[in-house]
């Protein structure tokens, strides 16, 4: 990840005409968050499919498998975080980190990816083309979301940002970590997404939990 970030910094500081000091924290925290969210979605599609053997012979609570995906990705996240922390110390942006809002942002991201894992896990067990669709969507979303480009570069078609849930997911962690102000919509959007998402995922889970094992 350090190599990816260095390369992007080298390239994009020239393309966008911004300084390394401004751009590197942006792309570093952006990719940390994006990596976590995207791999949760991709692995989330495999939650129950990968657990076929266990689900078929024992009464293990199904949420265990959701937490398993989440925990595994949190470990990757913590691992990548070390590189970001090193960058923060070298470039000195650790001084401006807004710790309370960073934690709130992380909590909101977790609240959202967890329901997505559950929902994708169920739907993918039923429809086997979902994992491939998710994988290609993730690629598309990466380009449409300000992970390595700056939202300020967009003047027309602002809806690319306004209606992009991933923009808010990234903003929730990135802004407080690089000491920038949060988009005022981020917290309400993510909180309501978590609520609606969990209600949906839970409704689907209640309706299908008996069936999931037969999907496999």
């Amino acid at each position, binding site marked *: 990840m350090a190599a990816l970030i260095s390369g992007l910094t080298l390239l994009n500081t020239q393309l966008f005409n911004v300084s390394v000091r401004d751009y590197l924290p942006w792309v570093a925290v952006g990719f940390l968050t994006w990596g976590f969210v995207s791999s949760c979605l991709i692995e989330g599609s495999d939650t129950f499919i990968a657990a076929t*053997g266990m689900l*078929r*012979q*024992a*009464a293990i609570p199904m949420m265990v498998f959701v937490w398993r995906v989440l925990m595994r990705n949190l470990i990757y996240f913590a691992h990548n975080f070390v590189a970001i922390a090193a960058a923060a110390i070298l470039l000195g942006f650790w001084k401006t980190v807004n710790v309370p809002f960073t934690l709130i942002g992380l909590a909101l991201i977790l609240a959202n990816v967890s329901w997505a894992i559950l929902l994708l896990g169920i739907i993918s067990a039923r*429809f*086997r083309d979902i994992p491939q669709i998710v994988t290609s969507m993730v690629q598309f979303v990466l380009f449409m979301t300000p992970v390595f480009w700056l939202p300020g570069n967009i003047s027309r078609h602002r809806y690319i940002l306004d209606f992009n849930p991933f923009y808010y997911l990234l903003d929730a962690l990135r802004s407080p970590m690089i000491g920038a102000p949060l988009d005022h919509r981020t917290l309400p959007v993510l909180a309501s997404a978590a609520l609606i998402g969990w209600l949906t995922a839970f409704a689907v889970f209640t309706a299908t939990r*008996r069936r999931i*094992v*037969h999907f496999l």
Partner: protein
Amino acid sequence: MTSAISAHGLTLRFPVYGVDNRSLKKYLARIRVGGQLASWRGTTMVTALRNVSLELKAGDRLGIIGSNGSGKTTLLRTLAGAYIPDEGNLTVQGRVASLLDLSMGLDPSATGLENIRLRCLMVGMPSQMIEEKLPQIAEFSGLGAFLAMPLKTYSAGMQARLAFAASTAVEADILLMDEWIAVGDAEFQGSAHERLTSLVEKTRILVLASHSPDIIRTFCNKVIRMDGGRAGPIMPVDQLDA
């Protein structure tokens, strides 16, 4: 604590999806054209268990016989809690251990020791107990220094030994088994048989599905015959005709 299994009128149906029905794209396309696609193959509902009732109490050793596809494994999975019946009710008292698929949850890139821990965690063993049991499981597997190597480097026989050693370390009141398990080379088969026999003796209730009347006669005191998802009455094992 008492151990008992009480099942009344268990019926289990499950959907079997045709190849086309596994694709969201095709599913949506079908809705758009109003089900006109000729190649469409819909979902078939299979009734795997029909009105199965049984009562077991401590000391019961139930053998299940029946031809392939008669519902033996489905019944075991239902008793294990993996399948939830559509109708009827099922009460299971006591800790259940299912030895249906020994390789359940093993991770090919983890080492032998890690896999033993993983398998024990999966059956709900507290980690302190795992650490106590670990040396004994490791010794029984007879894999020695190989236990520090990843599972994928094992031969099929070695993997089976590990899976057997780990999954038979359980302490359970109710043991569910699909066919008598035989693994390993001649020498290991002997000790495996011994270990499984002692596990069966310790357990309060055994449910064993098998095609072999001899196995059933050796380990069971009761027997039911399954046919097309229906279970016959529970009979004493001596009424089992060859």
